[in-house]
């Protein structure tokens, strides 16, 4: 069991125990339901993590690592960053306006509950439009990669302090 799952399952156990104890002390249903739900929510998330780890064949904390930890033996160090394979490299998404547009739509939809149906419909329309644009942008980036307009000209460094080259890295240049 990974540390993540352990944390969630412990909170879950607390929720169930507190819920049962609370019921027999107070016979008050609302708090009992809330506490049992507190047991169910993290428990569900924790079980998903356990399930997923089994599915992957336990790349999280193995039984051996867990035993070492419980026995107080310091864990063996996992592979450092230089051992990373290419599949672990991340991709940063491009700037996009759609989260702002979708949020505006949600705000209009909710405010429309006060000011009338026309605003609800406008908000829904904006949400659908933004979701479409959002997914199209995601698709485009997945298919063609991240298109960089100014790969040739290095842009000025961000931030108020211009620090010419703090990390003189002999690294490879980006493929442009």
């Amino acid at each position, binding site marked *: 069991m*990974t540390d993540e799952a352990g*944390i969630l399952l412990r909170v879950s156990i607390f929720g169930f125990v507190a819920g049962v104890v*609370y019921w027999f*002390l107070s016979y008050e249903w609302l*708090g009992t339901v809330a506490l049992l739900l507190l047991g169910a929510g993290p428990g569900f998330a924790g079980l998903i993590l356990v399930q997923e780890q089994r599915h992957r064949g336990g790349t999280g904390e193995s039984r051996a690592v867990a035993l070492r930890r419980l026995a107080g033996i310091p864990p063996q160090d996992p592979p450092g960053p230089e051992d990373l394979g290419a599949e672990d490299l991340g991709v940063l998404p491009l*700037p996009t306006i759609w*989260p702002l547009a979708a949020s505006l739509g949600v705000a209009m939809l*909710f405010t429309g509950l006060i000011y009338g149906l026309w605003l609800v419909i406008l908000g829904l329309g904006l949400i659908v439009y933004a979701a479409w644009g959002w997914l199209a942008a995601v698709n485009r980036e997945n298919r063609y990669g991240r298109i960089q307009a100014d790969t040739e000209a290095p*842009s000025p460094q961000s931030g108020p302090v211009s620090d010419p080259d*703090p990390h003189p890295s002999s690294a490879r240049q980006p493929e442009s």
Partner: protein
Amino acid sequence: MATTELPLPALPEAHHEEPSGGIVDYLTTVDHKKIGLLYIFTAFAVFLAGGLLALLVRWELATPGLQVMGENTYNQVFTMHGTLMIFLFAAQVTTGLGNYLVPLQIGAADVAFPRANAMSYWLYLFGVLIVVSSFFVAGGPAAVAWTAYAPLSTSEFFQGTGMDLWIIGLAVVGVAGILGAVNLVTTIFRMRMPGMTMFRMPLFTWGVLVNQLLILFAFPPLTVVFALLFLERNFGAEFFDPTAGGSPLLYQHIFWFFGHPEVYIIILPIFGIISEVIPVFSRKPLFGYRAMVFAFFGIAALSFGVWAHHMFATGLVYLPYFSIMSLLIGVPTGIKVFNWIGTMWRGSITLSTAMLMALGFIVVFLIGGITGIFLASPPIDFAVNDTYYVVAHFHYIMVGGLLYGMFAGFYFWFPKFTGRRLSERLGRWHFFTFFIGFNMTFFFQFLVGLDGMPRRIADYDIERWTTANVLSTIGAFLTAVSVLIFLWNFFVSIRRGQPAGDDPWEGNSLEWVTSSPPPSHNFHHLPEVHSERPAFDHRHRDNPAFAAAHTDPERNQDRG
């Protein structure tokens, strides 16, 4: 065509930097650092607005009689003060810091869902705008206190669009909070660099993790209760009307099932900040790392079991259960304070402004916490419920806890955000005016509270309360001066501050390994992580003494 993949070991400088600073860049950004800064600036603007309302409250209460506003306006002012401060500032400024710092501290390039992260910020901003817009509608903003108890907040007793805007705005902020929480929890669970096990994460990341888990489990009840209230106000539902089979207590139960975890949503990341600042300025590793982590979870779990101690005076809750659970929270909190002091013990302490703020935090948080333990006892709570004693207690926790920790974090991480230091000289002025002003404001409220002065009143006609109230008002204005000093410090330092370099404090966690401010992909180079102090190990990687200390199992066990 070029994909900006992130080759973790090394990346060339500045070729893929986004041009930053333009308004379009901020409107379209998906960079967790810019979003974090947007969160922090928005929350701070809300803080300034809420602070102005607080000054109005103090001005009104300085002497008996009505000075600046009528009673209804007063109700609106203190309601909006509480709303802005608790819902829209306190829980959000720490989310902003977490957004900026968590990916850096775990060695990730960004959060798990960068676009959804942007969306949660914009939802938060629109929520703020909806709530603030209630100042400009007929009838003005809500005047039902930040708790908005039904039936007071139902349409039977409080008409007007202001209340509806209040509900809708906070519901939107609640949705934003849940979205952001999913994002940050996934980031912490899934985006850690190799070697960064859960039990090597910096305490601030732990604080944010527990805080976001609390948001995940506490904000849904809040959204539910606001939905019920909105249905009751606008669509004729009768959840809270006893004549129709509803119950006003339903509102209080659900609200406080959110409301008490909210206190820890606010304070847990602050615990994390303090646990980062104190080891760095004591030149020692944190005392009892694992105990600190388990204390986080102890506090978080217990915080869900204590909601009805806010409802003792209703006479309809089972007192011993909630009293015992509330008293129990003192245990993990005590562990934390003990460990902070243990960290400082025999350390080589530098009294920088961040450290002063952290020490101030411990003092005021202890006062707030200990007075809270009294309130966990039902007989005392019956006596002082809804008096200024309670006001003073939770301001010692909220203002004391949150603001000292927040300012400690600002002074600590400002060099990382901007590449420049905040002025230490102005910082000292800031700290001492704040410390004196804050204690003057709230300490005397304990005394008048014990004397029976009720909260949420615009006027009082008991002369012996005047001295305490005048002192309290002077303290409030002194606190405002200290915030102005901070703002002055900010504007001066961001232009002309002393350049800080990448690691001005010789910090412990990974954000100090990268440049200040960090590049858009966060790291040019990631060191290996072998302990909970990767930046420290990296700094001393060539020193055989430190290397030996780190491979020595017994030492590791102590710290583990």
